[in-house]
């Protein structure tokens, strides 16, 4: 079990605001195997972003431990650079820098990491090509559609070849069609690269379509309430969505989330 790519042990996080202390997550244990695709689903405010941001060390847990590749990275003052470079973080919004062209945005992690070898630039261009952004590579983000921007956000997080992708509701703001399209593209990327993906979503369908396993979370305090394995064949495609087994999983998952919400009312 300790050969997990990422392991969270007893994570707690308190936020102290001026008026109160918020218990964002309580006693969270999670495990993500190498090459696994795992979703985290739960109602708004249950601490999904908090968890993924702790994994990326954007915020520190109040207590508990985080292991990446068996190495304890938190609580520590600084994560060693070789661990950071294993991680690609994809934000809820595209979060493109408007002052850089698409290509410059995608290359930004390379510049920050000092990866100046032309091989890396070629890799970036290959990713741009693969996501169909070639025509727009010299455009500024304001000239792009929402879908194209989020695509660019995804490949920016992948450009330094991380093993791990942390995705915080990446397609939440997109329309249904674009979202399905990007989901399929993401599955292709995952199959081709074998990255470990932690995917946060509000959408039951999205979670079932994409993942091997789903963590269901509840609020007050944010905690893991269930863990469901999605045993559907791969590679998956849109045909799967209309199958009975898919519907079964969606129902199961919706039920679990519903139970969580009911138990909170009681």
């Amino acid at each position, binding site marked *: 079990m300790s050969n997990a790519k990422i392991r969270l042990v007893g994570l707690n996080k308190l936020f102290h605001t001026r008026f109160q202390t918020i218990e964002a997550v309580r006693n969270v244990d999670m495990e993500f195997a190498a090459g696994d695709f795992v979703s985290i689903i739960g109602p708004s405010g249950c601490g999904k972003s908090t968890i993924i941001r702790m994994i*990326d060390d*954007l915020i520190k847990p109040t207590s508990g431990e985080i292991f990446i590749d068996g190495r304890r990275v938190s609580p520590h003052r600084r*994560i060693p*650079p070789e661990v*950071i470079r294993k*991680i690609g*973080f994809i*934000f809820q*919004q595209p*979060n493109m*820098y*408007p*002052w*850089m062209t698409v290509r410059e945005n995608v290359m*930004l*992690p390379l*510049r*920050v*990491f000092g990866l100046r070898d032309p091989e890396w630039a070629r890799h970036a261009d290959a990713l741009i090509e693969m996501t169909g952004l070639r*025509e*727009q590579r*010299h*455009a*500024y*983000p*304001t*000239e792009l559609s929402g879908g194209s921007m989020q695509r660019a956000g995804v490949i920016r997080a992948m450009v330094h070849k991380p093993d791990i992708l942390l995705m915080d509701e990446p397609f939440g703001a997109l329309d249904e069609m674009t979202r399905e399209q990007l989901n399929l593209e993401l599955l292709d990327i995952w199959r081709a690269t074998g990255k470990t993906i932690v995917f946060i979503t509000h959408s039951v369908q999205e979670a079932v379509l994409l993942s091997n396993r789903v963590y269901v979370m509840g609020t007050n305090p944010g905690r893991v309430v269930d863990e469901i394995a999605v045993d559907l064949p791969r590679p998956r495609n849109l045909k799967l969505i209309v199958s009975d087994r898919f519907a079964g999983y969606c129902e199961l998952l919706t039920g679990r989330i519903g139970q969580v919400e009911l138990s909170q009312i009681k």
Partner: protein
Amino acid sequence: MGLTLEQRRELRRRKDRRDRIVGILAPTFTFVLLLAAWEALVVWLEIPTWQIPRPSSVFAVMFGSFGEFLPHIIRSYSTIIIAFACASVVGVALAAILTNFKALGVALTPYINMLCTTPVITLVPLLLLMFGFGQWVLILAVTLQAFPILNMNASTGFNNVETLKLELMGSLRATRVQTFRHCILPASLPNVFTGMKLSGIFATTACVSSEFSGGNRGLGARIIAYTQFMKMDKAFACIFFVAVIGLFLYTLTSYLETRVVKWKI
């Protein structure tokens, strides 16, 4: 839309060119109209020329006696431009330092703001008394007046970069310098340019008012002298020369802004 990026940009460029031409023609037209009205009023109301000169005679003097003005133009323009350049560097660099080292910022900001709100003309007699009438004293005074407003604007920009944008740098574990270079500075360029425009205006005002208060060189000093001898056409000629440098700095900064802030178009 079925247009390629290049086509859309070309349309954009054409529209910009149209806007630029209108942007030049319209104010020029207003200018000519105002001068004509001025000329007409002075003639009709028979205002004596030692009170208000006619614009035509002001222009005649501007070109006719250009040699007489030239040394003073050079003196004032060089003071303003050198001070503006110094203020630009000092203003932005100081803002970068003060926003990065919070304690230093808290310690110094009130005094920089005070410098901004104190008219430098109140200091100039003192400075001249202490250091003599050298041009560098004026350059120092003008810089002191011009950099704080830029510092204030740039600091506002540096301090108010969207959290999400900074988090990207955080997730890449960028160093402070990298964060400033790739994120904070470009995000704040609009504030920096606003600060520079104001700084140019402050520099022009400060220079002329400093020259009012002492010495016999520079356009400010000439305006005082000509007014005393009721040579209003020459005084007005100097005022126009001052207006020209002020406008030049403003236009220059605006132009730089459109070149540098390409993504805003």
